[in-house]
């Protein structure tokens, strides 16, 4: 139906279907990003004629991608009608899977998070259990909040994610965790919801989330550091996420500190281990007390103790901060960011002494010009940054000009011919293997 309309409108005007789709894609992105919203602005920015712009806008209104909005500023004569992108034409499902928790949410097509949920989960429960949990909660959230049907899934994973050779091609995920090896996680998730899945490493999505909605809003060069059980970093350079040749950029936890890896001496596990020893030996009164009451300790307790002034914890987190800062300083000299955001569970709970340690090492070891206006702050987004970033990943993928031209004539990325083919491919591959157990209906 939609295809027919586009075809009919195109008669005699554009030189080819590709040209029509290119102009549709160009205009949609101008409106969507707010670069141009009135017909006059669109004609000027796109360098397309008035009749072509009118025709393309009418097509996109028919397809449900655009709508007429408010009156804009008059520049002599009648006030122009502004075009608006229909961010509710579909929704985006987003999830961030971490070592000990999962986060899920629904975002609109502008990547704005509408609802989110976080819960504890163990990665070593295996991919089947995590997949089942994701599916049940997504189903429940979609039904419960009555959001539009999804157009895509954005996924943040706890480890590097390879770049696919083609769009819609699934990549193997989490090869480092034994139970996840060779499990078709992305294919299964894609088949389950009938939408494309785009995956990135957790730290890369968190970096994008911070850049879009956190401390890095409006900045073009920033570094995000995730301090958890592992330590990694993400880089936004000149407005773009740097993924690296294989997609594995940012694994700074693998730099050496003496004989050990950085994450083995400054990661959450190392901090907890030292805190536990200090609690047991009575070197930290606060931790000894917590240990006595609860029988266990976490990095959150250590962070809280530091905030309350427990000297052992202040010193411990300060030392970890300096070690992380020493790994960050060469990076800072290399890329000259205007902001470093520190996130992850250690940063959330570690507070001022951790931050002070990082600042001390980075400022001491950076070139004065690099550190002149450099800000080092703690993330305020928590795990939400992974969700916002995952939504941003899907938005960037679906609306990338080449991709957009492949589906805009049909009005939905789900009708992209390449995606349809990838679904068929996945169906054929998965059919060979044992069919999955039917999931429960509710979360």
């Amino acid at each position, binding site marked *: 139906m939609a295809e027919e309309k586009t075809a009919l409108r195109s008669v005699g005007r554009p030189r080819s279907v590709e040209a029509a789709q290119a102009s549709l894609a160009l205009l949609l992105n101008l409106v969507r990003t707010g670069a141009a919203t009135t017909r006059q602005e669109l004609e000027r920015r796109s360098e397309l004629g008035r009749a072509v712009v009118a025709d393309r806008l009418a097509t996109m209104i028919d397809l449900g991608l655009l709508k007429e909005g408010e009156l804009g500023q008059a520049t002599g004569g009648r006030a122009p009608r502004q075009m608006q992108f229909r961010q509710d034409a579909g929704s985006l499902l987003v999830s961030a899977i971490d070592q000990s928790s999962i986060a899920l949410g629904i975002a609109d097509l502008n990547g704005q998070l509408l609802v989110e949920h976080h819960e504890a989960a163990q990665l070593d429960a295996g991919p089947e259990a995590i997949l089942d949990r994701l599916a*049940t909660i997504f189903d429940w959230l979609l039904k419960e909040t009555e959001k539009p049907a999804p157009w895509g899934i954005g996924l943040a994973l706890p480890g590097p994610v390879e770049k696919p050779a083609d769009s819609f091609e699934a990549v193997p995920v989490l090869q480092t965790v034994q139970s996840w090896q060779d499990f078709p996680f992305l294919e299964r998730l894609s088949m389950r919801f009938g939408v494309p899945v785009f995956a990135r490493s957790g730290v890369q999505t968190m970096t994008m989330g911070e850049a879009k909605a956190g401390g890095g809003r409006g900045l073009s060069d920033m570094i995000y550091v995730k301090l958890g059980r592992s330590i990694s970093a993400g880089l936004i350079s000149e407005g773009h996420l740097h993924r690296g040749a294989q997609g594995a950029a940012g694994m700074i936890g693998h730099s050496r500190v003496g004989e050990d890896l950085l994450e083995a001496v400054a990661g959450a596990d190392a901090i907890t281990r030292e805190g536990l020893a200090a609690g047991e030996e009575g070197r930290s009164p606060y931790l000894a007390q917590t240990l006595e009451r609860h029988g266990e300790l976490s990095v959150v307790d250590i962070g809280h103790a530091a905030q309350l002034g427990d000297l052992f914890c202040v010193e411990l987190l300060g030392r970890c901060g300096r070690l992380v800062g020493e790994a960050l300083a060469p990076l800072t000299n290399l890329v000259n960011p205007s902001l470093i955001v520190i996130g992850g569970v250690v940063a959330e709970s570690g507070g001022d002494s951790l931050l002070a340690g990082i600042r001390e090492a980075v400022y001491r070891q950076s070139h004065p010009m690099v550190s002149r206006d450099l800000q080092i702050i703690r993330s305020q987004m928590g795990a939400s940054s992974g969700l916002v970033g995952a939504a941003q990943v899907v938005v960037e993928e679906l609306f990338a000009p080449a991709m957009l031209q492949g589906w805009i004539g049909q009005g939905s990325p789900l009708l992209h011919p390449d995606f349809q083919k990838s679904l068929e491919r996945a169906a054929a591959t998965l059919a060979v293997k044992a069919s999955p157990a039917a999931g429960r209906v*509710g*979360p």
Partner: protein
Amino acid sequence: MNSQTPGKTREDIAMSIAGLGPHGERAVPADQIQLSATDAAEARARRFSVAVVLHTTTSDWSKQELAGIAATLGLHSAALVEVVDCNFDVELQIAVLNRLAVDPVDAVISIPIGNARVAAAHRALTQSGRKLVLLDNAPTGMLPGTDYASVVSTDNFGLGQSCASMLSAHIPAGGAAGILGYGIDFFATHEREIAFRKWMATHRPDVTLVRERFAELDGAGQAALAMVEKTPGLSGIFAVWDVPAMKAVRALAQGGIDIPMTTVDLGNEVALDMARHGMIKGVGAQMPYDQGCAAARVTLAALLGLPVPPWVALAGREVTPFDVVEAYQVIWHLPAPKAIIESSRASTASQDSHAGQ
């Protein structure tokens, strides 16, 4: 999940915190937020003014929450200068927050009513220089530090798990359990339902779950009846809080149906039903007085410029028909009403006499 073994301390009976914060934060337990003697002295000297904005001030929960806030602020010479009842009206909450942003108050404790609709007004209050402490949840998109100081909440996820485990004892193998869910997009009831379902899926995969929703409280009774009619052999119901639970109890009783139920919060009616050994078999209760005290301490800490955790959580407390009187005292900081004490005695006496026969 802790069972209530005689001789256990209060800390043992309290559930541990199972849920994560609005941004996936790990909880800092409310009892860890304390002011040092120096901080308390400074707070007293500065004589802060605080306003409280609630969805309603008429519920038992709200009254206890306010009592906790008022008492704790008072102890630190901080004045509770205004309490606003928004009567569940989003527009009213927005108007009040906009007014408070120019009124002479130092901090506001607020429970956001709608999700995204009230975010801008809350954000504007923080931008005006006043400290903002939220109860129960942060609207999606609001960030700690920038948009608010902290969220002080009960562990709703834990409450849902607790209700599932207590109801499970009444569901036979291969049986069916019902969820009486709230049809409005509300964070706390969402978390409870998700947790209830997760506990059942993990520990009782044999149980089939069915569900009815109510958008208005008056529809809860009908929804419960519909669920029982549609599901022959339904062995138990979880209602997401006490008021709809009691609507359901009344509607089911009128229809001559007796079915085990669990719910959240120990309202007076629920407590009486439990004391009579009625349909309510277990409650996961919030501790609103304690939550109020914690919210006040967090507010004072934020006003003093001390770092406060983004998510401060309180564990709930499991209540069974056998300890309803004692639980009432702990939760409401009041003696249980006479009717509850007498019903509880009568039920225990009748059980003892049955046991003796």
